[in-house]
C-alpha cells in the first residue's frame, strides 16, 4: 500500500484537484486508493459533453485525457484500437487515409456547448452512446464496439471482447459500458469496428408542410430497398423571425430553399447506384407529384454534418431534449410539439431534437409523459440555466433502476465513479 501511495504522489494533480494519470497502471493505482478512502471521483475526458447528465458531487476529478493515442489500426481487419481518450477527430483523420469511417455518425455536441465543432474523445462518446442519422441502417455506437480495457471501481484492470466481429466469449460488457456515462469503468482502451467510407452521396429535398404526408413518406422510405441512409424533416415553425433567420443562416445551400419546411432524404454509394436509388425512390415516393430538388455531393456532406451537429440549436441557453419513440408514433409526438417549440425529426436516427425555452421548463414533464406513453424515452441533453424543478435527466422505471443499481455495485461497489450522474443510487 505504501508503494502505491508513493506512486500516486508522483501522478500530477493540479490545483483543481484533478488527477492526470498517463497510463492504465496509474489509473488503477489512483482508483485503488480512492476505493480504500471511500472517495468518489468525477471521470472526465476533454469535457465536451460534461453538461449532459446530473451533476456529480465529488471533491476530486480524474482526467483520462492523457490516455490517448492510436494503439493499432488494421484497415483490412476493419478495426481500430485506440487508447480510450483519443480525440475522435484523430481517429477520423486516420481512418480517412484508408477511405474508412466510423459508420455511426457522430453527433457533434461542440456546437451546443461552444458554437464550434468539438467531438470529444472516443471514451466520452462511447459513454454517451448517442449515434446520429445512420442509426436505422447501422445501429448505435454500442453496435460498433468490439472490445475494451478499463479499470473498475475496485481498481482492477479488466477487459472484455476482442478485435473480431463474431465473438460470444463471456458476457458482452462492451454493450454495458456504452451509454453508462462513466459510472461503471474508467476506460483505458477501446476497439472500434470501422467500415469503408461511402464513395458519394446525394440528397433529395421534398418541400412540404403537411405532417401527414411527411409521415407517409417516412414510412415508404423505411419500407424501401433503396437503402436510404438519412431522412430528416426540418419544419418552418415556430413562425418567428429569429428562428427563420437562424434556419436560413444554418442551411445556406445553393439548391435549398431553407425558408420552407423540407424533408431531406440521403442515398449513398457510387454514382451509378446513387442514380439508380434516386430513380427507384422517385417511383416509390411518387416524387414527380411533389416539389423537389437535389443536393449534390458537395452540398450533401455539409448538410448532413449540420444536421448531426445540432447547429440549429447552436449555443442554446434553453433546454434541449433528445426524444426517441417508435417510428410510427412520431406523428403523435409531433402533434404535441408543433407550432410551439423549435424541433426537427432525424427519422433514420429515430431522433426528435426539441428545444424548450427556459420560460417553459415545466412543459418538459408533460412531453416526457407523452413520450413514455408512446413507448419511448426522453433525455434532457441540456438544461436551461433556470432549470430548477425536480425532473430526472434520464427516463427509467423502478425495476430497471433496481437492476441498474445491482450492476453498478458489481463494477463499482463503493460508488466511486460519477455517483448520481445518471440516477440517484447509481
Amino acid at each position, binding site marked *: 500500500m505504501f508503494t502505491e501511495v508513493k506512486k500516486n504522489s508522483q501522478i500530477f494533480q493540479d490545483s483543481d484537484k484533478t488527477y492526470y494519470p498517463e497510463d492504465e497502471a496509474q489509473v488503477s493505482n489512483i482508483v485503488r486508493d480512492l476505493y480504500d478512502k471511500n472517495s468518489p471521483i468525477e471521470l472526465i475526458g476533454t469535457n465536451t459533453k460534461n453538461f449532459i447528465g446530473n451533476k456529480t458531487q465529488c471533491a476530486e476529478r480524474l482526467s483520462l485525457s492523457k490516455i490517448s493515442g492510436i494503439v493499432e489500426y488494421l484497415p483490412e481487419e476493419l478495426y481500430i484500437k485506440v487508447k480510450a481518450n483519443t480525440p475522435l477527430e484523430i481517429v477520423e483523420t486516420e481512418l480517412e487515409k484508408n477511405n474508412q469511417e466510423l459508420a455511426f455518425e457522430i453527433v457533434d455536441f461542440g456546437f451546443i456547448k461552444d458554437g464550434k465543432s468539438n467531438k470529444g474523445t472516443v471514451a466520452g462518446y462511447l459513454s454517451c452512446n448517442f449515434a446520429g442519422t445512420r442509426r*436505422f441502417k447501422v445501429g448505435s455506437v454500442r453496435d460498433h464496439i468490439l472490445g475494451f480495457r478499463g479499470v473498475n471501481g475496485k481498481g482492477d484492470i479488466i477487459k472484455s471482447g476482442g478485435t473480431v466481429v463474431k465473438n460470444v466469449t463471456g458476457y458482452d460488457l462492451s454493450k454495458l459500458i456504452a451509454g453508462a456515462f462513466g459510472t461503471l469503468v474508467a476506460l483505458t482502451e477501446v476497439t472500434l469496428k470501422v467500415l469503408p467510407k461511402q464513395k458519394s452521396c446525394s440528397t433529395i429535398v421534398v418541400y412540404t408542410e403537411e405532417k401527414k404526408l411527411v409521415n407517409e413518406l417516412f414510412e415508404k422510405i423505411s419500407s424501401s430497398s433503396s437503402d436510404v441512409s438519412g431522412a430528416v424533416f426540418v419544419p418552418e415553425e415556430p413562425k418567428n423571425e429569429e428562428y427563420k433567420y437562424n434556419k436560413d443562416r444554418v442551411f445556406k445551400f445553393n439548391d435549398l430553399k431553407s425558408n420552407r419546411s423540407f424533408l431531406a432524404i440521403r442515398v449513398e454509394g457510387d454514382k451509378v447506384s446513387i442514380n439508380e436509388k434516386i430513380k427507384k425512390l422517385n417511383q416509390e415516393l411518387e416524387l414527380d407529384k411533389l416539389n423537389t430538388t437535389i443536393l449534390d455531393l458537395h452540398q450533401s456532406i455539409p448538410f448532413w454534418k449540420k444536421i448531426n451537429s445540432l447547429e440549429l440549436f447552436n449555443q442554446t441557453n434553453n433546454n434541449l431534449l433528445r426524444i426517441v419513440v417508435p417510428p410510427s408514433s412520431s406523428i403523435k409526438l409531433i402533434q404535441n410539439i408543433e407550432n410551439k417549440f423549435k424541433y426537427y425529426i432525424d427519422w433514420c436516427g429515430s431522433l426528435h431534437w426539441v428545444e424548450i425555452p427556459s420560460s417553459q421548463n415545466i412543459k418538459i414533464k408533460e412531453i416526457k409523459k407523452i413520450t413514455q406513453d408512446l413507448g419511448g424515452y426522453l433525455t434532457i441533453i441540456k438544461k436551461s440555466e433556470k432549470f430548477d424543478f425536480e425532473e430526472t435527466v434520464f427516463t427509467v422505471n423502478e425495476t430497471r433502476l433496481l437492476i441498474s443499481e445491482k450492476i453498478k455495485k458489481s463494477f463499482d461497489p463503493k460508488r466511486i465513479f460519477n455517483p448520481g450522474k445518471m440516477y440517484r443510487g447509481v
Partner: protein
Amino acid sequence: MSELVLPKINEVTISKKEYIFKNLSKIINPENVLTHSDEIKPYETDALAAYTQTPLAVVMPENTIEVSNILKFCHKENVKVVPRGAGTGLSGGALPLNDAILLSLGKFNKILEIDFENKCVVTQPGVTNLGITDAVKHKGFYYAPDPSSQLACSIGGNVAENSGGVHSLKYGTTTNNILGVEIVMMDGTICRVGGKTLDQEGYDLMGLICGSEGLLGVITEATVKILKNPQVVKAALIGFPTIEEGGNAASEIISSGIVPAGMEIMDKALIEATDNFSKAGYPRDAELLLIVELDGTVSEVDELLNQVSNICKKNNCSSLKLSKDEKERLSFWAGRKAAFPACGAMAPDYYCMDGSIPRGKLAEALLEIKTLSKKYNLPVANCFHAGDGNLHPLIMFDGSNKEELKKTEEFGAEILKTCVRLGGVITGEHGVGIEKRELMCEMFNDKDIQQQLDIKKSLDEKNLLNPGKVYPILRKCAEEGRVHVHRGEEKFPNLPRF
C-alpha cells in the same frame, strides 16, 4: 469424452423433490410438469449430445407470470434452474443438472405482433428463427441473423447465445438485430427492456442479456428488427491453387472497401468431401474455394462482382463462376451447406470447432492446422466464415479408439489456442456452455472472469440459474471443448451446420 465437472449436487433438493414437484404442479398446469423418466429422457441433452444429464423435472410454463412464479419458488427453495429453448445449441448451454429443474420455453411458440410500420416483430421466445422470416416474407421482409440451425433453433435461444450466421459482417449478429426483450430474473422479477425504439437509454441490459447463455435471466419475449429484402443477390464461386492466394484475395476484398453479404471459404479436404457427398460441382483441383455473396441494387451488385472478379484474378484464381440466376446462386451454396454431413460420411466421428480469428491470419491458421493434422495424424477439413473471421475446423476420428479420442481433444484445444494466439477468440457463435468453459482462461485473466462473476452474483446471488456453464468451475485451463458427433448421430442430423 473427458469427464465433466458439474456443480456439486444439492442433496437437500434431491431429498425434497416430491415437495418441489407438488408445488410446481400448483404453480402451473400439472400436465406441464414432467417427472417420469420416460418423459424427461428427451431433455437429457442438447445438440452437444456427447454429454447427458437427467434433470430433476421438466417444467413447461405457458406464460410469463408462470415463469416468474416458478423462479420465485425455486429462488426461495434454493432449487437450480436450467432454461432451454429448442435445444439446438452446440456448446451444452442447456445441459440439464441432476438437481435442477429444466425450464422449457417450448410452449412460448407464438408470434405476438407483426408491426410493419415499426419494422419489427414481437415474438415469444419459442418461435423459430426462420418462423420470423416466414411470417414477414410475403411483404418482402426478413430477419437478418441466420444461424445454420434456423429451421429449428428458437429466437429465445438466439438471444441467449447471440447467434450469428453467414451474413454477420454486413448485418450483425442477434445483438444488433433485437430491439427489446422481456426477461424474468431468478428472483421472479419481470423486467422489460427496450421496445420498438431503435435503442434504449441507461445500462444496456439487453446487450448484457444477449449472449449471456441463460445465466442472468429467462427470456420470455423478444422484439426483433425486420429488414426489407435487398433488390438483388448474386454470388461468385472462385477456386485458388494455394491457401495463401485464396486467403489474400479474401483479405483484399475487404480492404478494398467491399462489404460482402456473405463470404465463405472451404479448404481442399472439404471441397472433396462435399463434392463427393453432394455433387456440388466444385473445382476439385483447387486448394481453397471462396464463395462471395453480394446484395444491394442491380448496378451496385454488378459493379462489386466485377471488382471481386478482378481481385481474384489478380490473386491468381484457378476458376471463377458468377451466378447467372437464383438457381445457380443456391447451387453455389449447396455444397457448403452439406459440409458437416459430408464429414460425417467420411469418418465415424468428427469434432466441430468454433473459433474466430482476424481475417488476415486465415492462411497462417490453415497452415498451422495442416501441420497439427500431421502431428496428430488425424484428418481435418476446414470451413470458414471469411467475412467475419469465424473458423470451423472439423477433425475426423474414430471415437471407439480411446487413444484417438484423447489425441483429437488435444488437437482441438491446440486449434483454439492458436485462434487466441493469432488475435482471435475461442468461440465465434456456438457459445461457451460447458464445452469451452475451461478454455475461458486462455482469453481472460482472473480479474476479467471475476468481474463477469460479480455481475452474475449481483443478478443471481444464490447462483441458481444455469450454474456450471460458461465459467470454469475450478478456474483452471483444462484442455477440452468441442462438438462431438459419433457415427453421424448428431442431435439434429437434419439441420445444416455451417
